[in-house]
């Protein structure tokens, strides 16, 4: 039975990862150099998520209908569409291109 050890270890590791900042750092103000680094975590991690979720595959770069979804989303963002509309446009474009290819 290999399932439960996996559930247990992954669960405990993830709980610790998610709690690491809030439990270890808490509200204490960050030293200035570190604060400059933490401010950049948002743009950097979001950019990495965009890349990996758009073209990430099983150990390789996969170009598929997700690209069309993100492209459509970029147009919707440029047209100042609200966030829910951006998400719906992306899903619709992805589904359409997948249906046609």
């Amino acid at each position, binding site marked *: 039975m290999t399932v439960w050890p996996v559930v247990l270890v992954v669960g405990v590791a993830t709980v610790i990862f998610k709690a690491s900042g809030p439990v270890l750092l808490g509200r204490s103000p960050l030293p200035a150099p570190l604060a400059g680094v933490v401010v950049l975590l948002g743009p950097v991690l979001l950019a*990495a998520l965009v890349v990996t979720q758009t073209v990430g595959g099983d150990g390789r770069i996969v170009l598929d209908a997700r690209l069309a979804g993100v492209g459509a989303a970029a147009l919707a963002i440029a047209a100042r569409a609200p966030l829910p509309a951006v998400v719906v446009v992306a899903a619709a474009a992805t589904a359409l291109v997948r249906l046609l290819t």
Partner: protein
Amino acid sequence: MSSEGASYRDGVRASLPIAATVWFFGVSFGLLARTSGLGAVAPLVMSATTFAGSAQFAAASILGTSGGAVAAITAAVLLNGRYVPISISVARLFHGHRLRRLAEAQLIVDESWALSSRGDGRYARGLLLGAGIVLYAAWVTGTGVGVVFGRALGDPKALGLDGAFPALFLALLIPQLATPRARLAALLGGAIALTLIPFTPAGVPIVAASTACLLGLRGRS
């Protein structure tokens, strides 16, 4: 980096369109886990404790293809390593007893974190926790439905939902690119992730990309 005046209700409202997508992915995780031989209870326990889609999909699919426990654990832990830098970025939103901080921190997930961002390194506690609780409920109930009825609900990929997540992250990235330094760091992080995708296990590209934040060590911009 203070908690801007957004309420939990604002977080709930902001999360609803994303919650529908997360729910469908919960359904597909439940279905995949069931067909991979994880049974009915283990997928639910995993969704309730791990609450991170990509790591759970990776672990279930590796177990389903007899990849073994060590491979499944390694992949899932690498995938979730990004929650160390993510949780550091929002650390100041949490207060009270350590156990309370530990419990509330479990509502941190990519989407609740991204929705809570106010740009310039600031995050809103109400948005993070309000969105987090909705997304948690969506993920766990979706998993339950998937374990029991998954086959009847169709494939989230046919609905294009896998294109919705990068679109969400892109929409939330754009307002964060206000300064030249943020643009440079985002470009560098994206490039690191893209370069590493073919060469490393999934998860490593995102963790490695976070080193682009070290640009913030150079004086003020």
